[in-house]
């Protein structure tokens, strides 16, 4: 029996290696996370100052559970693929009359041995990468602590326990699939699916269906607002939204499948029909792709989804990370942004020589009335509170705050600044440029013409109750309204830490009346010491760096966990593709030899092989990225048009690793 296990291990070493390596990587990732969870002091340190100490371990536990579930499911799937390759062998054993129990025990033994190697290797690797991961995590969350290797017996026991149970189950599954194989000779599977068929109605319907479904799903994402409105109109509020979500999901899932199973094959078949005299290189590539699409539809589909999910996770986490920073920067443009009420406190902490630069920004508080058009194309009369800024002050601040848009004004023109994206985003479906609308300052009756609407506030949004208006100097000077003074302070690097930590725990809040009468201009604007039902507030002192740090901790942690999951998904994707590629390699080798014998130029042969690998790996990547980009775009819109350079970096990193896998595959195939 040992003999049997040994020969099997040797004979199927390619498969056992793949099994062990994939398991090893998954184990390493799981261990690293489990060890992080156990490393309480480290997590406490990371969470410090962000009121999230207890959330981090909990979030990591969730990630670990997700990863374990996925790993288990994936290993079962991989196991099935691997074992299916040995069907012939089992059939032979049974024909030769090998007793079932012997086959079973040798299969289980084989699984335990190759899996055990993966487990041990994975644990060792996990200990190594745990340090790496901890370092990455600390870096992402902006901490300068140092870490060593994380060796945790508890984590080892947890992971080993799960994996051992898994291995026993996999061995059992192998035994089950090896039994009950028919001893009788079956008719050779007809080549129907694998070879280019005459175009059937079924194929055409599937092809059109695939394009239609995927097209519609794409349209929904591109015009989300339009479709939600439609569905809400047709089916009512929550039912409509739920239905839209469900039908979108179904359309995506089936659409991608049909594109692989029907649309692309149909395109190939039609191309072949139209162009009967292709060169061999081109023709053989198309035929091979047709076969791949038809035979490996499921794995292409699965890898496409894995790619989509991975990219959405990575991309959105990266975007949120960047978004978090951008939000803070937009909110507080300099080191400190303080109002008049906060000023005394700030002054108390600042010593001579701490300040690099100070900006004073006087604003006047006034109620205003304007009719604006919304995305659903209905007009809305809006009364709100504006902090009015003179053009000269705006220009002065803009010299140091580069993200402020350029503004030029005629005497009675004005530029509105608001965070309501409906108004400043004039593009896209339902977008409406409100330029030219009349804005009335209710109390003085001053009439202004809206020139444009932006969302960047001078000195940062944190200093504003609601909206701001930039007006000409003349209008500003003649406006009768209470002055609200804002101050931006840039600290010298040496003073930052001291001043910031001193100011961090102060709590000054400004309140201002926001009731109907005030907004309509019937009452003068009034400040309050405390909140009431009809007040609106803002922080008296806003600090940039501590806010940035907090954002980094939260979103850095998110990015970290998403990257971990992303790696696991990626390993899954690559191993499925690699496996499929190797399975077909045997057949491909015969083809290659024949073509060489017939005198096909060696370069063309090599090109053909590369083209096949590129297409098989490229298709899921392209379709998956396409899906992911749409998904991320929705998030981006929800986030107010967040910057997306980090998404490109995340996609780039993913693509790079992915291409690496493809090249390894191509190289292995070339050696065969």
């Amino acid at each position: 029996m040992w003999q049997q296990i040994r020969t099997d291990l040797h004979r199927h070493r390619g498969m056992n290696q793949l099994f062990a390596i994939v398991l090893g990587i998954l184990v390493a990732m799981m261990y690293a996370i489990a060890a992080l969870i156990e490393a309480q002091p480290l997590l406490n340190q990371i969470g410090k100052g962000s009121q999230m100490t207890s959330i981090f371990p909990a979030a990591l536990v969730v990630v670990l559970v997700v990863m374990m579930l996925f790993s288990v499911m994936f290993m079962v799937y991989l196991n099935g693929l691997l074992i299916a390759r040995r069907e012939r062998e089992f059939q032979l054993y049974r024909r030769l009359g090998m007793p079932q129990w012997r086959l079973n025990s040798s299969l289980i033994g084989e699984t335990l041995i190759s899996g055990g190697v993966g487990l041990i290797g994975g644990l060792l690797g996990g200990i190594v990468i745990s340090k790496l991961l901890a370092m990455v995590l600390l870096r992402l969350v902006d901490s300068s602590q140092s870490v060593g290797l994380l060796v945790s017996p508890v984590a080892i026991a947890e992971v080993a326990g799960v994996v051992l149970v898994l291995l026993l189950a996999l061995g059992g599954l192998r035994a089950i699939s090896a039994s009950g194989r028919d001893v009788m000779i079956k008719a050779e599977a007809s080549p129907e699916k694998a070879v280019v068929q005459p175009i059937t109605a079924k194929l055409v319907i599937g092809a059109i269906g695939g394009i239609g479904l995927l097209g519609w799903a794409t349209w929904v994402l591109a015009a989300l607002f339009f479709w939600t409105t439609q569905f809400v109109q047709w089916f009512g509020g929550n039912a409509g939204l739920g239905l839209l979500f469900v039908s979108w999901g179904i359309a995506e899932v089936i659409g991608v499948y049909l594109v692989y199973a029907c649309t692309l094959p149909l395109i190939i078949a039609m191309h072949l029909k139209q162009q009967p005299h292709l060169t061999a290189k081109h023709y053989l590539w198309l035929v091979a792709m047709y076969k791949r699409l038809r035979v490996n539809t499921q794995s292409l589909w699965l890898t496409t989804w894995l790619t989509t999910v991975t990219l959405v996770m990575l991309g959105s986490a990266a975007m949120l990370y960047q978004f978090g920073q951008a939000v803070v920067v937009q909110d507080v443009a300099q080191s400190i942004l303080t109002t008049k009420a906060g000023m005394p406190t700030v002054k108390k902490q600042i010593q001579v020589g701490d300040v690099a630069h100070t900006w004073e920004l006087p604003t006047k508080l006034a109620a205003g009335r304007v009719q604006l058009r919304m995305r659903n194309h209905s007009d809305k009369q809006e009364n709100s509170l504006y902090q009015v800024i003179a053009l000269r002050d705006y220009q002065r601040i803009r010299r140091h705050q580069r993200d402020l848009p350029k503004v030029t004004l005629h005497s009675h023109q004005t530029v509105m600044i608001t965070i309501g994206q409906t108004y400043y985003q004039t593009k896209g479906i339902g977008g409406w440029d409100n330029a030219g609308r009349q804005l009335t300052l209710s109390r003085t009756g001053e009439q202004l013409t809206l020139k444009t609407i932006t969302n960047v506030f001078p000195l940062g949004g944190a200093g504003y109750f609601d909206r701001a208006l930039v007006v000409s100097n003349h209008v500003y000077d003649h406006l009768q309204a209470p002055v609200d003074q804002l101050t931006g302070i840039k600290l010298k690097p040496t003073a930052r830490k001291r001043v910031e930590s001193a100011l961090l725990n102060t709590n000054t809040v400004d309140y201002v009346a926001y009731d109907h009468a005030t907004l309509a201009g019937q009452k003068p604007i009034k400040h309050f010491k405390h909140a009431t039902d009809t007040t609106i507030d803002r922080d008296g002192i806003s600090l940039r760096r501590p806010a940035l740090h907090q954002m980094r901790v939260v979103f850095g942690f998110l990015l970290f966990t998403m990257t971990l999951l992303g790696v696991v998904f990626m390993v899954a994707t690559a191993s499925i593709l690699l496996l499929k590629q190797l399975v077909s390699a045997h057949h491909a080798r015969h083809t290659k030899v024949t073509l060489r014998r017939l005198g096909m130029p060696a370069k063309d042969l090599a090109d053909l092989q590369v083209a096949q690998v590129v297409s098989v790996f490229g298709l899921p990547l392209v379709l998956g990225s396409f899906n992911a980009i749409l998904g991320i775009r929705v998030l981006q819109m929800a986030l107010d048009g967040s910057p997306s350079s980090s998404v490109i970096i995340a996609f780039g990193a993913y693509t790079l690793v992915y291409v690496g896998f493809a090249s390894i595959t191509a190289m292995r195939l070339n050696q065969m």
Partner: protein
Amino acid sequence: MRMVKVDHLTKIYGHRFNRVTALNDLSFGVDAGEFVGIMGPSGAGKSTLLNILATMDTPTAGGVWIDKTDLSDMSKAQSATFRRDQLGFIFQDFDLLDDLPVSANITLPLTFVPPVPSDLDDRLQKVGELLGLLPLMARYPAQLSLGQRQRVAAARAIITHPRLVLADEPTGSLDSLAATELLRYLAKINLEADTTILMVTHDAFTASFCNRIIFIRDGAYFAEVTRHGSRQDFFNSIIDMQASISGGRRQHVATDPN
């Protein structure tokens, strides 16, 4: 003109403790326009010889010249060009591509290097008719009988109008009618297009279509028989020679009695 010259050709497979001498100091020549049969017992080295002639295997010692070119001087690319342009090979195990329909299998060698010939369809039609493949054009190799596959392999070898055809038991799986058709065609292109043909066969009837038969045994030249008179007489002398090759007598030159 000498088309093929085989000079002291030796091929040894394996190394040290596990050597098989497939060809042993074999020499002979074939003139342009000849239709030569190669016969000999199983394992005599016939396929090995053909593979070396087709630049798909390399000799251990000795040399092969085709059309005055030493095959050992050819680069990989040159030998690929040679196989593509000059040679038609009917493989013993057919070597068809399972994923391509019969028609594409046959025309494949014509499409390796652009431009694809404009008379592709005409050529396909012609060989298809000749080898009775027209009704099978849209089928796939897995759906064919062995004999049908062999005819596809033959069609693929001759569609390029090669100057030299190497055939490894091209009629092994054919019934006598189909075999006769193929052999008649080979004889025809041999006569009309001056195609030189080397054909390995076990079968005396098949061999009787040739002008000359070279017998090899244990990788070495054994004898040869040249046709002078009727096919029946030639057939009889082939049978005699086959008897003597298995009887073990070694003859250097044998001509048929007429």
